[in-house]
């Protein structure tokens, strides 16, 4: 936590996209996230790493209030996005989630056509004025999802018919289509083979230019490859947060070091 604060001095206020302070999450009686403070920058890839069950995914789901859909989850503390408290009573989670998109562990295309999958978000948020406009948005999103060339000839084939890697890129395109400012990715490559993983990682690199990307990963190598900043979670605590280089080469906390070197996890 100390390191997080150290890091803060190096950045200007405009660069901070998400600022969480004192976040506690309870699942019923289970205290899943303990006192987490973190600041996440814009146009940066931030990786959350840690052993399974450490709370990294739980924390990620707090950032777009996906935990609201779970009855027993209870959240305390403050999470600010663009200096606005997302747990404020006035905030509509629907609007928040349009701003903070999410990609899930398992590719989950809707049982609709590829086109309809991508068009779903723009349609519900009313982003397109007409059909031509919608076509534009879909094409753009698919291009940004680095999958346009593979599907442009079969936009009306079902999305579930694609391969795993294609499905996940479709889901990323789907998330991008609603024009979010932040993209949350919950272990987006864990269900993919190495080649598909490589494609998705390359995509994440490109996405960084426009979005603030937060990625949860169980693979340290992946965190090292794609992220600029890394946060290490352990048993619900944010143990250490810093530049990826620093975390992997010069961890300050002994627990981080143990995890990096493979002694825990």
């Amino acid at each position, binding site marked *: 936590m100390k390191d997080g604060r150290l890091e803060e001095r190096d950045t200007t206020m405009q660069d901070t996209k998400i600022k969480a302070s004192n976040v506690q999450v309870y699942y019923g009686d289970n205290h899943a996230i303990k006192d987490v403070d973190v600041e996440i920058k814009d146009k940066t890839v931030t990786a959350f790493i840690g052993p399974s069950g450490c709370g990294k995914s739980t924390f990620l789901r707090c950032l*777009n209030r*996906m935990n609201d*859909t779970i*009855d027993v989850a209870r959240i305390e503390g403050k999470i600010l996005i663009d200096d606005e408290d997302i747990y404020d009573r006035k905030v509509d989670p*629907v*609007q*928040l*989630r*349009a*701003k903070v*998109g*999410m*990609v*899930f562990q*398992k590719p*989950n*295309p*809707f*049982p*609709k056509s590829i086109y309809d999958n991508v068009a*779903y*978000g723009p349609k*519900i*948020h009313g982003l397109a004025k007409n059909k031509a406009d919608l076509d534009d948005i879909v094409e753009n999103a698919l291009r940004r999802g680095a999958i346009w060339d593979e599907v442009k000839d079969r936009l009306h084939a079902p999305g579930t018919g694609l391969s795993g890697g294609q499905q996940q890129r479709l*889901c990323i395109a*789907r*998330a991008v289509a*609603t024009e979010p400012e932040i993209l949350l990715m919950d272990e987006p490559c864990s269900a993919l083979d190495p080649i598909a993983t490589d494609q998705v990682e390359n995509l994440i690199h490109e996405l960084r230019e426009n979005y603030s990307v937060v990625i949860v990963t169980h693979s340290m190598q992946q965190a090292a490859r794609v992220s600029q900043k890394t946060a290490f979670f352990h048993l619900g605590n944010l143990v250490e947060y810093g530049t990826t280089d620093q975390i992997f080469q010069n961890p300050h906390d002994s627990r981080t070091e143990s995890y990096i070197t493979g002694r825990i996890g």
Partner: protein
Amino acid sequence: MSLIWLFAILLALAVAGYWMTRRRAMTSAGGDVRKLHSLPNYYGMNAAMLSLAPALIVLFVWLLAQPLLVDATVTRMIPDEAIPDASNRGLVMSDVRRVSNGLDALVDAGRMSAQEARDLSTDSDDIRASMAEVGVALGSDVRPEVLRAAQRYRLLTGRGDLARNVIVVLIALAGAGLAYRRTTHEFRARNAVERGMSLLLLGAASIAILTTIGIVLSMLTETGRFFSQYPWTEFFFSTNWQPRFGGGSDLGFLPLLWGTLYISIIALIVAVPVGLFSAIYLSEYATGRIRAVAKPMIEILAGIPTIVYGLFALITVGPLLRDWFAQPLGLGNSGSSVMTAGLVMGIMLIPFVSSLSDDIINAVPQSLRDGSFGLGATKSETIRQVILPAALPGIVGAVLLAASRAIGETMIVVLGAGASARMDLNPFEAMTTITVKIVSQLTGDTDFNSPETLVAFALGLTLFVLTLGLNVFALYIVRRYREQYE
């Protein structure tokens, strides 16, 4: 000797066989259980099984076959001339059986010796009167050939029963003896018993098939007889249903089909939206407390017998619709109507649709919901645009199952829909259904040789085929749907 005594003897033989064989097994092992291949009880069970099972099978077959054989023999004694004009062979034979039972009753009551019953003739005694005294009511005086046939019938049945009892007991003895003889300490009794057991289990499972065969056969033969007396084109394509006892009936199936479908459609119009929205609300919106109260209440609707819904239609919904809708709108004066039956049947189907939809909605994986919420969709958008389209095949299956229920429902339409067969669009008019007509043609005085009675079997078969087709199709759709998410 009655059947119950026969059963008792068989049971006693089985028990005796059990203990004797068990003892023999113990003796052959020198009293040391460890030397036996199987536990001692298995030797006993083997004997009980071998004595009971074949005997019971033979008994069962005998019970089915004997009446047929005796009938076939006796019926030859009645010449065609002896059958009165207004009657037929079947009716005469049932007279014969009744007289024969009457003779039995007379002998049992001590009014007559067995010899006298055999020699009784129509000249000397008032048979009808004496039989009435022992509780056997005859429709007319006994004619001589009927009496002779009855005496013959009684004789054959008596001999048959005696032979049956002797043979069955002998088989039981032989089975037990065989098991006893085979019993040594090396005999694999457990394996033998388990083989028998699995045959028994298979037999139990086959009863489902036997039931279906029974349903199909019983309706097919009678339907065949119906179509031999009444042209099938008239049945399937005539729009006129007017049974007349005494012949010359119009038995057109179309008005019944129309009533059935009309009522079912109204029921589905009520049940599908209400059931579907209840399921959606309960699984996606309701808080725990509301769910805990509302869900059981909806389920109670499913546990209420249909006769209760029928009475509800008859005394409450029917008059209500008549007084508040039909009469003010000038649409009719009948409490029984398509609307009454359809509405009440719709209420009955709500829990059916709702629980099926609930299963189907819950089968849609959570990841799809997450994906939709993650894009900023509201709950209703997620339900309408992701969950329902994904669940659509399953819901279509559920609706088809509900439709098959509605088509086969009887008591609500018997009490709520009325009995007049007509093809009309006015939903406040009384109409009738296939099931109502099955009930009305098969209750009361029935003559199984007239088309007016036999038509019920043709209706039943049509109903069976209709609902079975819907079910098979619906189950196929639902299964395909489930496989998609497994």
